[in-house]
């Protein structure tokens, strides 16, 4: 039904040449009142959206959110109060907005939007879908559902003072996945385990250590290994290849998580061992192993930030304080583990968990001569915290509803993308609207007529189960893929449980996949079919486990280019690596780049917040980005 409506809208739209401003008269109120809308996410933007919708007269609303309420939400997610902490966001948001308009019919789903319960058929019930999400996985998924259902989607996000809103309609506009997204920064496993050079490497190591010691058993546990890796191509060979090393986790249990013994293993013995891998230190500063007693007494001078009013957490610990914190947090975590047999989830808002990561990361940084930071700063980095304020969410949610009204009155051409800027652009525009809708990318691997990608990997080494988890699920965002070989029709991955498990540990080569083989992948829930052209490539030490490109020719050239950070899209995600979201640097939009750069030339000094880059990325992982685990 809804998809028919969309077709009608299309026709009306194509005949429209003149724009007509939005006049919220009684006819339009009627249209609004009789439409059915879906809000995905009840966080910062979601709360504002739901308020605006019921006040504007929308009375048939469904909302999906899997999250529960946390104290740090309350500075902006104004439908929630302290007494609601721990409860379902969708449910509490529904109850709160019903007080604004008791006539509204609101259905709250405390669930993940990627659940098969919300398939294409579910989406087709709505006249328009509004995303208020904080992560790329869910955004990609809803994008595909809406494209398949033929329902207009309004995508939005904020980060700090900035935000944006855009309409997504199949064949008319870009879809969420038309532009390659700058990938989260990733680091090779050997950097984390053997040769950290930045504090972030140590933080990731400390989080892996947490998972090793306390986390639920993870099938990919070996990927979170924190011990030295003698197989590192640069190690120069393991001097004692026959020594069988006990896993960190088993060993920690046998010593009862004793802080001193853990310290000696992690910060003295393992570091001593690393020093024996001589090849690693030919061009690097070698690490300095620490002794427990000495470290406990090292009150080194730490350069404190120049701020009289600093918070307790902003004081930087000296080495002695780090060791004491390491000790204290271990006893807290040991106790927590005794109460929870399934293991602990790392949570930046849990005191012991955060203390543990901050202290362990700083001790490791000390060993490798890396500048340390405060618990406050480490929390931002470890938790991927993206600053969020009420006002940016309010502006963006207001713009979403205005665009939704324009969609409902058939004025799709008046739903150009809008950006909220921290500071006005050179033409003094603060809330900037694009001049026209952006055309779809004909090579998009999601919304084009015949979507295809090329995957280059070492076919001799990559196992099928890794291909499924790393390539199909993590990178291509499929939920339950089926895969067959094009030439034979042979099913190599089935979404039916257990059907193709016997293939899991075979390499792609063993399954008959060679350079040039074509695979057909299909996700039933997303109604998404993709052709995958396989290419063979041998991979180096710093390489991710695979490369992906929409256009095969992009993969041909030199490794140099592909490895560069400037082409992040070509770097595959890797479980052995880690995802780090940069702060809000990804987003900024200058409407008139030319004018901006011309201006810049005449000025030595430009204000910090102005960023040149045109946006390549929706502000994904925006708002309370607390779902990405590194």
């Amino acid at each position, binding site marked *: 039904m809804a998809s028919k409506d969309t077709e009608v809208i299309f026709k009306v739209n194509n005949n429209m040449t003149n724009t007509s*401003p939005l006049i919220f008269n009684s006819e339009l109120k009627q249209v609004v009142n009789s439409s059915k809308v879906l809000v995905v996410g009840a966080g910062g933007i979601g709360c504002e959206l739901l308020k605006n919708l019921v006040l504007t007269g929308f009375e048939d609303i469904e909302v999906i959110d899997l999250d529960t309420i946390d104290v740090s939400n309350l*500075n902006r997610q104004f439908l929630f109060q302290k007494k609601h902490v721990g409860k379902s966001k969708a449910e509490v948001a529904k109850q709160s907005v019903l007080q604004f308009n008791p006539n509204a019919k609101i259905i709250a789903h405390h669930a993940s939007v990627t659940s098969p319960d919300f398939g294409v058929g579910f989406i087709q019930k709505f006249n328009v879908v509004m995303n208020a999400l904080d992560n790329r996985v869910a955004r990609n998924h809803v994008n595909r559902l809406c494209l398949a259902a033929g329902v207009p989607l309004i995508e939005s996000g904020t980060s700090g003072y900035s935000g944006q809103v855009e309409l997504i309609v199949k064949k008319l506009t870009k879809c969420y996945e038309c532009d390659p997204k700058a990938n989260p920064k990733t680091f090779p496993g050997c950097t984390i385990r053997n040769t950290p050079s930045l504090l972030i490497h140590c933080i990731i190591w400390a989080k892996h250590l947490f998972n090793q010691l306390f986390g639920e058993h993870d099938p990919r546990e070996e990927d979170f290994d924190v011990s030295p890796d003698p197989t590192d191509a640069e190690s120069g060979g393991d001097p004692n290849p026959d020594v069988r090393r006990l896993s960190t986790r088993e060993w920690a249990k046998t010593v009862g998580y004793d802080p001193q013994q853990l310290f000696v293993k992690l910060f003295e013995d393992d570091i001593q061992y690393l020093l024996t891998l001589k090849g690693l230190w030919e061009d690097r500063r070698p690490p300095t192993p620490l002794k427990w007693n000495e470290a406990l007494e090292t009150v080194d001078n730490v350069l404190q930030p120049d701020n009289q009013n600093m918070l307790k957490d902003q004081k930087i610990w000296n080495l002695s304080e780090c060791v004491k914190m390491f000790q204290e947090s271990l006893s807290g975590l040991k106790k927590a583990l005794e109460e929870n047999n399934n293991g602990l989830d790392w949570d930046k808002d849990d005191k012991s968990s955060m203390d543990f990561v901050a202290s362990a990361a700083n001790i490791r940084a000390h060993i490798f001569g890396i500048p340390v930071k405060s618990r406050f700063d480490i929390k931002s980095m470890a938790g991927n915290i993206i600053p969020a304020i009420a006002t940016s969410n*309010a502006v963006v949610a207001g713009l979403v509803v205005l665009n939704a009204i324009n969609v409902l009155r058939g004025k799709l051409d008046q739903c150009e993308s809008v950006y909220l800027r921290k500071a006005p652009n050179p033409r003094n525009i603060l809330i900037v609207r694009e001049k026209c809708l952006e055309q779809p990318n004909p090579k998009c691997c999601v919304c084009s007529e015949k979507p295809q990608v090329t995957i280059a990997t070492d076919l001799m080494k990559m196992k099928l189960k890794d291909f499924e988890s790393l390539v199909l699920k993590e990178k291509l965002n499929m939920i339950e893929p089926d895969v067959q070989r094009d030439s034979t029709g042979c099913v190599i991955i089935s979404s039916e449980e257990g059907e193709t498990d016997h293939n899991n540990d075979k390499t792609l080569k063993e399954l008959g996949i060679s350079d040039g083989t074509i695979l057909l992948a299909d996700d039933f829930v997303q109604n998404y079919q993709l052709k995958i052209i396989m290419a063979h490539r041998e991979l180096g030490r710093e390489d991710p486990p695979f490369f992906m490109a929409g256009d095969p020719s992009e993969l041909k050239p030199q490794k140099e280019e592909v490895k560069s950070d400037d082409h992040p899209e070509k770097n595959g995600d890797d479980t052995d690596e880690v995802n780090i979201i940069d702060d809000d640097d990804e987003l900024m939009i200058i409407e008139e780049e030319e004018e901006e750069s011309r201006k810049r030339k005449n000025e030595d000094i430009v204000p910090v917040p102005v960023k040149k880059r045109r946006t390549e990325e929706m502000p994904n992982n925006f708002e309370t980005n607390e779902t990405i685990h590194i």
Partner: protein
Amino acid sequence: MVEDTSTNLTEDETELYDRQIRLWGIESQQRLRNARVLVIGLDGLGAEIVKNLVLSGVKSVLMLDDKESIPQDTSSQFLIPVDKVGQNRAEASCQRAQNLNPLVSVQADTHNVSEKSDDFFHDFEVVVSCSQDLAQNIRLDNICRSRGIAFIAAGVYGTFGYIFYDYLEHTYSVEYSSGKKGAEVKTKIETTSYPSMESVFNINLSDPEVIKSFIRPPPAFFILKTLYKFREEFKRDPTDSEEDFKALLKYRDTLLDGVDYPKENIPDVAFRCVAVGQLSPCCAIIGAVVSQEVIKVVSKKDEPHKNFFFFNPFNLSGFIQSIVPS
């Protein structure tokens, strides 16, 4: 204006305000915590501003309004419970505003703003005036100017919105760098000054030199003047009736009489857009821009807007305009 007493934030405060402290820093949060704000006019726009400021953690918000709420308020004024329609707007908003943040002092005053003596305003760092008429706004601006209080007047009419700012003299810090990657970020102190509302609205539009500066941006200032004129004559805001529409067109034509400004820049349809009451999403947008500027002026950080912000009903975008007497 705001005295910088550096009382330290409590653990509860740092936890609650964590995500914004990470954006604007502790010093700004401490300044906010000492700021007392007066919000006059508890319509849909006023409600949005109160919500944002209470959430941000200012010291206190006083809501001043002598009007009773009417059923139309429920389409944008979400602080008034449905069963309190008919009661005083400020008082009826109190409970929900307080629920947003127990750390902020939230109070209501049911008097008419014109009954308030000049001294009344002395207790505030910022005064925000929503949907008042021009004469009242000019009076408030003059009082605030004489006492060094930041003054903001704002209004939402359908899809049109305006904000007027007068900070008299405002000194703020701004971060800058050479623009090169990895360059050191430094802080500098800037000062900017604002003209009075009276002087801005007395600008002689018949002067061809003056009017030149109005040609490029959208005709928002003219729409605002027309709406103020309507308010002056009718003592109320326009509805979507044909009589009101005709009156608005008449005021526009009178305004443009003898002014060298193309009438087609202010098409009739603009006055259909504005005469539909307050639209909730527009209250949310304008209210958020006002609130962020209050936060900015209180925290003395970053460059504030020039003296006007307008929300453009033709393409639903928002721009800043400097309108100053020569």
